[in-house]
């Protein structure tokens, strides 16, 4: 029993220590400059903000640090430290739940509804300089129930990449922005060669790709106010049958059948003559397959017209942050004409402000098809808990690719799961 008493005392002591440790940073937020030389030079009384994001390529990490350094030099009273972490979603979620979130953090449009529903985000979108300058489709991507939460930092759209050598060898005209589904299918068929193991098109069983076809067919995931799912429509079936049909007929294949980790790799290796990826494929191909000759054009139009997907990330400001005004100012700079130009001049992701369009295109004319997508791109954002629908469609399409499931069955299942999610 002696152990018990000492244990109790130690436990008390420990909890006291933990409590005091928790209290310290809150009591004196700016007293201790963070490790690292730049912050140390900040004058007393300066606000220190943390910007958290995920680590990407070295080039991007360095460029973002440069942009942040530029802000810090010009604004001694607001100092931003950049924290790029791996396993971002888990890290963000635990710091939000722990009540000490970073002041500014990346928010993917797909994740936005969950964070907004949890009240984790301060709506700052409308406080930005010249809000109307952002592409409407991208503002829409960060709007939930009429509230524009956070300004998009950059974006990528899906486009059609094609291997010019394979097209020339097959004696085919290069794809153009005027292509229709039939052109895509016909070209994929002609480019498929059993002997060389080359297929016309590489697509994965992935909702994030098929959905472009859904919109091109004139279909919708749900009705406008998300009160009912509409994946049981004839348009959705047409899109699913077209997508799965390409694979079942052998004109297209998922990356795993082409000894690749993702379609971009299959395309780079020359195992697929076409693929549909976003801007991220450009630095990848340049780095891994520098000799590959390829072109980029807009996705083909379906029976319902043109459509592509915009994948975008915004700078969110934590609702329960301590320096939200300062954080909003920093975000306004980062997504403002000057900060965004400095960031997107790297050429990896595209500027979300229409006023930067011409200047950017002058530097990267070959990426025009991707930038054009902004005019008709759809948002990659649904309702809280939509991850269940995403998983269900992906799982269904994986089976449909092997022939174990019909297109109709995949959609029926997704429709039913979607209704459950909307009813929650």
């Amino acid at each position, binding site marked *: 029993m002696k*152990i018990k008493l*000492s*244990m109790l005392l*130690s*436990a008390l002591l*420990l909890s006291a220590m933990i409590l005091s440790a928790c209290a310290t940073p809150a009591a004196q937020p700016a007293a201790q400059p963070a490790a690292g030389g730049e912050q140390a030079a900040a004058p007393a009384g300066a606000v220190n903000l943390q910007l958290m994001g995920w680590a990407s390529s070295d080039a991007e990490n360095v460029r973002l640090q440069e942009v942040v350094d530029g802000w810090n030099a010009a604004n001694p009273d607001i100092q931003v430290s950049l924290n790029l972490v791996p396993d971002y*979603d*888990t890290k963000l*979620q635990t710091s*939000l*739940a722990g*009540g000490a979130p970073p002041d500014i953090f990346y928010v993917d449009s797909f994740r936005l509804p*969950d*964070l907004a*529903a*949890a*009240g*984790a985000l301060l709506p700052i979108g409308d406080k930005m300089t010249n809000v109307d300058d952002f592409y409407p489709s991208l503002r829409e991507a960060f709007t939930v129930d009429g509230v524009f939460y956070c300004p998009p930092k950059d974006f990528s759209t899906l486009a059609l990449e094609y291997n010019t050598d394979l097209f020339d060898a097959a004696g085919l005209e290069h794809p153009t922005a005027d292509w229709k589904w039939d052109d895509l299918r016909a070209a994929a068929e002609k480019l498929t060669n059993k002997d060389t193991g080359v297929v016309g098109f590489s697509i994965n*069983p992935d909702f994030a790709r098929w959905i472009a076809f859904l919109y091109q067919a004139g279909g919708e995931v749900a009705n406008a106010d998300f009160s009912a799912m509409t994946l049981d429509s004839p348009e959705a079936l047409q899109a699913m049958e077209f997508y799965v049909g390409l694979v079942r007929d052998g004109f297209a294949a*998922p990356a*795993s*059948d*082409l*000894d690749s*980790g993702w379609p971009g790799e299959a395309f780079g290796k020359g195992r697929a003559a076409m693929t549909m990826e976003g801007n991220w494929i450009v630095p990848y191909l340049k780095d891994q397959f520098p000799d590959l000759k390829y072109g980029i054009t807009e996705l083909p139009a379906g029976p319902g017209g043109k459509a592509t997907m915009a994948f975008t990330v915004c700078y969110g400001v934590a609702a*329960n942050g301590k320096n939200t005004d300062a954080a909003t100012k920093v975000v306004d700079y980062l997504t403002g004409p000057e900060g965004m130009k400095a960031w997107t001049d790297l050429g990896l992701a595209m500027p979300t402000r229409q006023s930067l369009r011409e200047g950017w295109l002058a530097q990267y004319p070959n990426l025009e098809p991707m930038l054009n997508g902004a005019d008709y791109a759809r948002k990659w954002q649904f309702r*809280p*808990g939509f*991850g*269940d629908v995403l*998983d*269900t469609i*992906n*799982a*269904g399409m*994986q*089976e449909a690719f*092997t022939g*174990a499931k019909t297109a109709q069955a995949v959609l029926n299942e997704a429709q*039913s*799961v979607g209704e*459950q*999610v909307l009813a929650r």
Partner: protein
Amino acid sequence: MTPALILFAVFVFIPIFFAIYFSFTDWNGISPPAEAKFVGFENFRVLLFEDGIRRADFFKALKNTAYFSLGVVPMQTALALLLAVVVNQRRLRFKSFFRTSYYFPSITSSIAISMLFLFLYQKNGLVNQVLETITFGAWEPIAWMADPRGLFHIIFGWFGLTLETAPAWMQANVLSLSVWDWLSGPSVALMGIMLLNTWTTIGTMMVIFLAALQDVPREVYEAAEMDGANARQIFFKITLPLVRPTLFFVVTLGLIGTFQVFDQVYVMSSGGPAKTTLTVAYLVYRNGFTNSQMGLAAAIALLLFIIIFTLTLVQRRITEGKKE
């Protein structure tokens, strides 16, 4: 002693207590935990009694995990015992070399090994090449980690039994999954992870068996040899009964380990293809961290604990029963 107890309390008891508490709330895992609403047994009702995607996913994960466990535990136990007996031989040369090399996978980073196996399992990867060579080209290469076909489904297919020709009772729904789905067997992708998992855990199990084998008195073996027992009799009549407590321990460890498999799924398949590698532990992670349903995730974790606990009790009963 005391510091250890405190650490234990802080890092084990308190988290367990909170996990149990959260399983009765609707906490989303994002907003401060204090804001979570108490919902009683709602999470458990959804998981066990409400027909829908959440129950379907839970039982699918349970099914996958059960197949995983049924495949891995006997395989790793048998192979580990076999290896232990082999490297325990007195007359074996390079004994240390073999012991070290068999133990090596166990101490290598599981993430690194998983990444490596992703390459081995590719369509033009080493596994397919070896199979092609030993079957003189009869083996049709498959993309292991992208193949959702169940083992039993493939076998059923040889006898002309497919989803289309399956009798009506096979299409009936039991706990949100069709009987046909329950009888899928592990998918090709899951078998890939099973092989990997067996390979990485054998070493540890072998070392445990080795310790037990070295405790068996030499005289017993000598007496058996004097009495004219052959190698097989010695193994089944002497070695096996004498290492039975260790066998129980190894099977228990295997059972717990396999029911909690997470890292290899996380790295190699993220639960795909077609949710056939979705394990219970991975489902907990997915619900907690990508679907913002931490309360539901905690409830699944609690159910997993109850399942493992029950299985261990049952298994102890069986092993103890054999003693008489």
